[in-house]
């Protein structure tokens, strides 16, 4: 199905809504779960996902399709920008959501010790800042290449590699701290 993507994009760039509908079906779940994972709110995730596709549609005429995967990076970049806007405007909501997971350091330690190691990683992940969490999601869950992530985040590939390495060390240290 993905082999048809370049052709679908070209048609959509000429204003073909049906072609864009097919693109929408291909990427909808990916974009939705990325957004949902970051904000943990189904209704908001649906709204932001739709906004991301509307923005992608509007900007399509100026999109330069160079190689496979770039369109995916382009969509994730739009989604990421919308998430950043949302999180900037609704910082209180984000904090509330994080508080649901991690109420305090003391609670966290109690909570973590009761869970398995897998859960510990999940919670450690929740304590990372939004940018770092997004990079983990894109790299380890969506399995995007460093090159694609660099396009989404707007940093060079080398810097992303270094950042991923640092995030892993950070996660390991946090998990170690919970263990103590």
């Amino acid at each position, binding site marked *: 199905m993905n082999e048809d993507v370049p052709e679908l994009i070209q048609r959509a*760039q000429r*204003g073909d*809504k049906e072609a*864009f*509908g097919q693109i*929408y*079906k291909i990427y*909808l*779940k990916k974009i*939705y*779960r990325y957004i*949902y*994972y970051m904000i943990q709110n*189904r209704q908001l*995730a*649906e709204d932001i*996902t*739709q906004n991301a*596709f*509307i923005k992608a*549609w*509007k900007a*399509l*005429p*100026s*999109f*330069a399709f160079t190689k496979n995967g770039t369109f995916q990076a382009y969509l994730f970049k739009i989604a990421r920008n919308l998430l950043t806007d949302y999180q900037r405007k609704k910082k209180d909501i984000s904090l509330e959501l994080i508080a649901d997971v991690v109420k305090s350091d003391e609670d966290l330690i109690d909570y973590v010790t009761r869970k398995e*190691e*897998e859960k*510990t*990683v*999940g919670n450690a*992940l929740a304590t990372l800042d939004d940018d770092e969490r997004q990079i*983990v*999601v894109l790299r*380890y*869950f969506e399995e995007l290449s460093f090159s694609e992530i660099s396009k989404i985040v707007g940093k060079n590939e080398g810097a992303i590699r270094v950042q991923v390495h640092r995030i*892993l060390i950070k*996660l*390991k240290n946090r*998990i170690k701290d919970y263990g103590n």
Partner: protein
Amino acid sequence: MEIEKYLAKLKREYMGLTPDSDFVDKSFERLELPVQKKSPFSFFVKKPAFSLAFTLLFIFIGLFSLIQVAQASLPGEPLYPVKKLYENLAFTKPQGKKEKTERRANEIIDIVNKKKGKKVLKETIDDYKKTIDEAKEKLSTGKDLEEVLSEQEKRFEQAIEENPESKEMLDEAIKAIRDEKTGEDVKGEIDGKNEKSESEDKNSGEN
């Protein structure tokens, strides 16, 4: 703990985050897609190499036009420095120096005809004198330059007839030409004398 291993397990949970089937099936129909606005520059955004080539071509044409327009400028005008810069780059060969004297002479006549003011005329005549000196230094034979200067002298005399009020200034330019010619004669005489004394020395040495 191998963190990558547990991240892979978390990935499974992550992949299970699916939207409602209603959202998957019907959300596109509910999407209000506006009419796409095509930017006139979208072609350039899509083709960066073409965009770069176009920008370079645009700059080249712009510079070429600027230089062309600047060629008609006179001292004191905004584009005159561009003209001078072009001359410094283009007329580096000895023959180019002759062209520079021709250009300064044309400027003097234009300034007189357009009545640009004595200050500008004086500055241009000073520049003209410098250009003659430069040409004299660079040209191996003074004959070419002499012809050009004689031609210019005639044009200056004609300009005096048409604009008697500039006579004093133009006389200075004519004087510069005559000084140059006289200098050439004197130099010729000196050179002749030197050659003569050298051959006399040679002869006496042989004897």
